[in-house]
């Protein structure tokens, strides 16, 4: 940008120079972006209309791969399990994180940092570590959780090998693993509420519940909806935990959408049919994101 004494010609040269520099600065990102984002996305849509294997070309088959999803029992299982998992994790995860954040926010200084660290540490760990720890905790023979079942007088069950227990167990492990992230966002939101509002409420002798309902909840609403949708989007994409805990178990009963993409493409060598599932997931996630953006804008407008 030129200074106040620039003449017209200088301005033009400056602009051209600016553009040139901008191109150089943007180029590394743009090159990677086109290569690993745009190109694969276009390819994904392309091969979903073919009978291509994982690697190599196929013939155009129209919307066949999509039409077949309708009567495909395994796709149904995958869609159902994904929805079930979302149901078990998103709302419960948000509520748990909110309650914990309210508790943690009462602590001050170092005590708060220490307690927050205990809740947050699991989130920082790789999924493989979470898997090995919980596989050990839930171990049928020697797992520490089995003592709880014994104590409750419930017969021991091989939790991750039992169909009915599998998804609820995944939900518990996932909430344990990721709650730290949501707690962190809630704490940021709670910190942004001015202390004077609470002081005024205390002078009015408002009860704890009234303060929460009239002050905390409405002011925290934008964060709550953010936490809720971030979780919704990330849980739709569940794969790692389900794959790891299904090793040596029953992957077909525990099928989720990303797992189905993986199985069709990498285990059955059907790139085209896998891509149709991937496109379905892609559209689902984008639709949820757009919806969330619109809702956020609407609620933003109201405020």
């Amino acid at each position: 940008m030129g200074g106040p004494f620039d003449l017209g010609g200088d301005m033009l040269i400056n602009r051209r120079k600016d553009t040139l520099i901008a191109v150089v600065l943007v180029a590394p990102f743009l090159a990677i972006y086109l290569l690993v984002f745009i190109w694969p996305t276009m390819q994904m849509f392309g091969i979903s209309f073919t009978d291509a294997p994982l690697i190599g070309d196929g013939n155009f088959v129209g919307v066949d791969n999509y039409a077949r999803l309708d009567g495909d029992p395994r796709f149904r299982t995958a869609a159902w399990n994904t929805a079930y998992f979302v149901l078990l994790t998103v709302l419960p995860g948000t509520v748990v994180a909110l309650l914990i954040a309210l508790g943690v926010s009462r602590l001050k200084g170092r005590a708060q940092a220490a307690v927050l660290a205990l809740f947050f540490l699991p989130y920082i760990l790789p999924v493989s570590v979470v898997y090995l720890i919980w596989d050990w905790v839930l171990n049928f023979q020697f797992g520490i959780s089995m003592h709880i079942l014994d104590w409750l007088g419930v017969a021991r069950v091989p939790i991750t090998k039992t169909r009915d227990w599998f998804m609820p167990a995944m939900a518990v492990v996932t909430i344990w693993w990721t709650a730290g992230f949501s707690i962190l966002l809630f704490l940021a939101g709670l910190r942004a509420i001015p202390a004077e509002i609470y002081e005024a409420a205390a002078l009015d002798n408002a009860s704890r519940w009234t303060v929460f309902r009239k002050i905390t909840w409405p002011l925290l609403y934008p964060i709550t909806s953010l936490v809720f949708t971030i979780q919704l989007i990330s849980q739709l994409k569940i794969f790692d935990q389900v794959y790891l805990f299904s090793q040596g178990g029953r992957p077909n009963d525990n099928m989720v959408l990303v797992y189905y993409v993986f199985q069709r493409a990498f285990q059955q060598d059907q790139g085209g049919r896998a891509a149709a599932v991937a496109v379905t997931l892609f559209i689902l996630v984008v639709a949820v994101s757009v919806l969330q953006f619109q809702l956020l804008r609407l609620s933003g407008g109201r405020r």
Partner: protein
Amino acid sequence: MVSAQSLRRVNFWGGAITALTVVLAIIWAFPLYWGVISSLKPEDEVVRPYIALWPETLTFQHYIHALTATQIGNWYINSVVVAVGVTVITITSSMLCGYALSQLSFPGRKLLWWVILASFMVPTQALIINHFVLVAQLNLLNTWAGIMLPQLIHPVIIIVYKQFFDQVPRDFREAAVMDNAGEFRILSKVYLPMNWGVTTALAIVTFIWTWNAFLWPFLSVTRTEMMTITVGITQVNDAFGVYYARELAAAVLAGLPVALAYLLFQRKVTEAITLSAGIKG
């Protein structure tokens, strides 16, 4: 006015909630403790039918086994190279792009900004098939570059950089332009030093994200010596029998670098993660 009685009641419930929070925090972290402590017990102690919160015989034999008899050393190297590589490339390219978006006017700037915002929504899990095809065509399966390539994009880092560069007062820029400094000089001598804090915070979390990645490293590597540690510890088992304590020792080794990164740079990590969720620090 607040009566003494109601104040006491409030204090009691307040204290109860605080106590409950602390107890819950300890329960929450207990599986981590249990995993670590089990990895320090001899194999026969691990499978005892009662709960022992401390090992009778403290042993590091499982760690020695993991470090000497398995490929964990290799996997460590692979994970470090991949995580450092992705961090350096992602941070550098995002910083340059964020600077251009924030400080320069050029045709297509608006469009680029919207494209970056929109790519927030793209589920990379849906792209695994075509990432695999791409990396296979480039002949990069089972290589460090192949593990890195699809992980080099984190649009959110550009967004954070743009916000921070936007906040630098214009006076600094105008003064530098008066001194005839070029854009690269302005970036490296003015904007980067002023945003050193956010740069290290973003670098630490990019490292953690990459270290923790599972799906893509799992798909793109089939040779055991090229695996990252997060994949290796779950995919390669000892040939005979199950050794719980050994598995847990491997898990502790895999989690240690990121856990340490978090504990050492706690504030930076939480700052960057909050920023990456779209909340300004």
